[in-house]
């Protein structure tokens, strides 16, 4: 597995934050790898296990539990729309619909196991997220690490990601 030196350095730095147990670094290491590769492959899981002196299953069970980890590649821009009550009352279903329409994403195949839908050109992917803790300014969404509140103009939002 080809991991750039600076990512390995970043990961080793993260591991140093857990002087009592290297296993504690599972989440941070996975975050670094997912941030770099876009998702967590089997190789990434095995690499993480080796780095932290764990069995691969101890890493895989973490990957499959947390909604924040993915096992397949998302789009270049990954959108998370808050689905929970206050945002839903502010129109998150409509926001999801119009984002899908503008990005050409078909969500009909979405299931609990496969929550992410991808546009055909791979530029955008989208999923519903549970409460993003900004209930007073719904509907809210995230595009990669960018956060948007009171979203009304979808065209304007997407124009940041041409």
């Amino acid at each position, binding site marked *: 597995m080809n991991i750039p030196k600076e990512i390995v350095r970043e990961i080793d730095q993260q591991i140093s*934050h*857990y*002087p*009592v*147990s290297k*296993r*504690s*670094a*599972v*989440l*941070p290491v*996975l*975050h670094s790898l997912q941030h770099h590769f876009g998702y967590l492959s089997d190789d990434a899981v095995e690499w993480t296990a080796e780095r*932290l002196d*764990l069995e691969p299953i*101890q890493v895989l*069970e*973490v990957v499959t*539990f*947390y*909604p*924040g*980890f993915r096992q397949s590649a998302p789009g270049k821009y990954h959108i*998370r729309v808050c*689905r*929970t*009550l*206050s945002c*839903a*009352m502010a129109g998150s279903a409509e926001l999801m619909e119009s984002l899908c329409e503008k990005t050409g994403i078909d969500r009909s195949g979405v299931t*609990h196991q496969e929550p992410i839908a991808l546009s055909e050109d791979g530029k955008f992917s989208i999923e519903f*997220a*549970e*409460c*993003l*803790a*900004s*209930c*007073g*300014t*719904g509907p809210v969404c*995230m595009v990669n*690490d960018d*956060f948007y509140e009171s979203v009304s103009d979808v065209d304007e939002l997407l124009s940041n990601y041409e």
Partner: protein
Amino acid sequence: MGNISYYTGKEPHPREKRVVFRNVDRQGWYPSISTYLAEGGYEQLKKALTEKPRTVIDKVKRAGLRGRGGAGFPAGVKWGFIPPNNEKPVYLICNADESEPGTFKDRYIIHQDPHQLLEGMIIACFAVGANLAYIYIREEFPEGVKILENAIAEARRKGFLGGNIQKSGFDLEIYVHRGAGAYICGEETGLIESLEGKRPYPRIKPPFFPAAMGLYLCPTIVNNVETLCHVKHILEVGGEEWAKTGTPNNTGTRILCVSGDVKKPGYFEVEVGKVTMGELIHDMCGGLKDGRKLQAIIPGGSSAKVLRGDEKFTIGKGDAARKIELWDIPMDFDTLAACGTMAGSGGVIVIDDSRSLTWVLNNLNSFYAHESCGQCTPCREGSLWMKKITDRLVNGSGSPEDLDTLYRVAKNIDGRTICAFGEACSWPTESFIEKFKDELAEGCKTENSGVLVNPESIAAAANLR
């Protein structure tokens, strides 16, 4: 509030008392250490370091500070649970996993006043004797992670973190730990498991609470962001003086977050118990939307039991007992508990008569079905059942027996799980059925009785024959 000015449109309401949120939306305020130090930042820490840890704990106990994360447990008492003869290392974790639907306060503290949190945390670590601490922050706050890491580096450069802090002989390292999108990590033992690099399955307690056996099986204190911020202010004025704000047993200020069907949703820091539900919704939030009537309020995060708009409550005991209406409820821990619900995390969700309550409950049930960790059978299975039943009610394919089934499922989760998620996921369903049975029954139709709708049940029924 002296010479402080706030951004236009973001000014605090006159009924607010800004303590923890003093610098939120403030003009000319930046989350940098120089801004913080210019206004007496870290002075309380310096003062605390000259005192005995015991003295600091006593001050927090005398203040009566109750946890702001949801349970409302007194923070000083929690700190006191560390075994007196303990020889193991002690850890402190700041719970910044803010994910209770309806709650949006910690984000602003982290983004706009990170040093306030760090100062409170460092004082708390000194008090409980922790030399290693973590801030467990939800993954969806990437900006907050950067701000906190920067603030930690600044504090370290100024000698407020690291070895021999301010030449006191006290050492402390704080690291930021990111979660990965799981609500259950807000439960303190789930959080600890997650910080140990595992699935966040909550631990069985009692007998051992984290203060006795937490991270790496060592004594561990887990406190919410807002709670830790208050520690600094308690040190500033002293426990007794701090306890003069708010109301007895419900001391201090707390941040209430209002969302849903009001004209001006937002966050308001108020003295606990000094503002009623009516004042909060009508005065501070501009009231309901024009022409709308109140249907329901969820007063303390989505897990709190719902209140009917026209409900009457009896509070007080014996001769002091009196009946009050929803609008008269003072927003404190004890009264909301007496009204059969809870102050929880301070997230108030307002629902007017334009909403289908079946739809509201279904939205919450979907949340809990998604977030159940799956460790305990009643919750893992039950939360999904509740979602499936309300799915049916929403699209009008419910049968007359569905409400009884739904209620029974909820009652069979409540009290039968390792952690409080069991109550959190069943209380909405229980309370909605108890208070809005007629509304929910609209989704139940006689012709649907005995009709199998999903492929699994059709297949299962075929096997039975």
